[in-house]
């Protein structure tokens, strides 16, 4: 298991927290919570080691569109990048609803 952390700039407050997904094979759990300040913090624990660059690419892309001040925790059980992207977007949808 590998732990990875990233920070991104944020502009707006987020209305509420969101929890989506399951730590099941090929899937992941995302916990998204509003945070103070102008930063988004991402904390990842993944069962598959050695994919830091891939995680960075997925999150860089996600944060080109998303500007919420949040703390995101990801518990991953080997999800594909596409799956990660979908779960992140689902979490945003739940939190902004």
């Amino acid at each position: 298991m590998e732990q990875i952390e990233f920070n991104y700039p944020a502009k707006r407050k987020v209305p509420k927290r969101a929890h989506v997904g399951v730590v099941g094979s090929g899937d992941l759990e995302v916990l998204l919570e509003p945070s103070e300040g102008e930063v988004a913090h991402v904390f990842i624990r993944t069962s598959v080691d050695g994919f830091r660059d891939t995680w960075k690419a997925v999150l860089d892309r996600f944060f080109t569109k998303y500007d919420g001040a949040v703390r995101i925790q990801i518990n991953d059980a080997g999800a594909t990048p596409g799956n990660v992207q979908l779960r992140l977007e689902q979490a945003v949808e739940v939190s902004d609803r």
Partner: protein
Amino acid sequence: MNDKGYNANFINRQSFIELDARERATALFDAGTSRELLGPFDRVESPWLAMQGVTPQEDDGCVVMKGKISGQAAVVVALEGAFQGGSIGEVSGAKMTAAFDLACADNERGIRTSAVMLLETGGVRLQEANLGLATIAELMGSILALRKFAPVICLTAGTVGCFGGMSLAAGLASYVVMTREARLGMNGPEVIEQENGVEEFDSSDRELIWAIHGGEQRYATGLADALIDDDTLQIADAIRRFVSMGVPAVHRSSQVALYRNRIAKLDTSQQWDPKGFRALWTTNGSSEEKR
């Protein structure tokens, strides 16, 4: 079937099996009455998994919800089969036990509170072996205390099924509800094959597995009280029915003489097949005295 050549009920039904543990638990309550206790944001996760390189889940694969079923207080505990096979660890087991103990305390104060356990589990989590075993013992004690006051209903819908130590918890339930897709048994097919050889049990033979462990057989042999289609409305309906029925006159696990007699009567010199066994143990409507 209708004139379009398909079964509209089947197409329109909302599958229960396709729901995750949280959605399953929510679906059983009267609309808008449920709230989750010790949810993922409370971050009570297993302290043992990360040490062994396994990613934990924030609710440890155990969803506890309180609310009302048929207007009566109820607690629902759902195991998430997709996380570590729904296995019971220190935290998930403690959550389940504490939920039942609180329900028991409410009953003692005169607030009738039923319990439903949604079991999709392979049993004890091997990474937490002894703690998992200990927690199942505690859980069984809690079920025995609670079921004197209010029904403890076990629902295993599939597709993981309910195996290992948790099948003992299912055995203590006031009522067991299953679907055709669900399986219930102490030793899973692979364990039996591994211990006694492929001649004893071929774990790749799905027809054999469901003929022995499947919901249909369990219901036909009186080890389950209801066999329901994989339909959320029908399943919620069955749970409401058993909540309303209250505590059974005699729990299945208290019918020691009945099952001892049945086992004594089994001729073990011949190989029983699931059909023959069903004919012998057919109990829904059995004339045997329950004591």
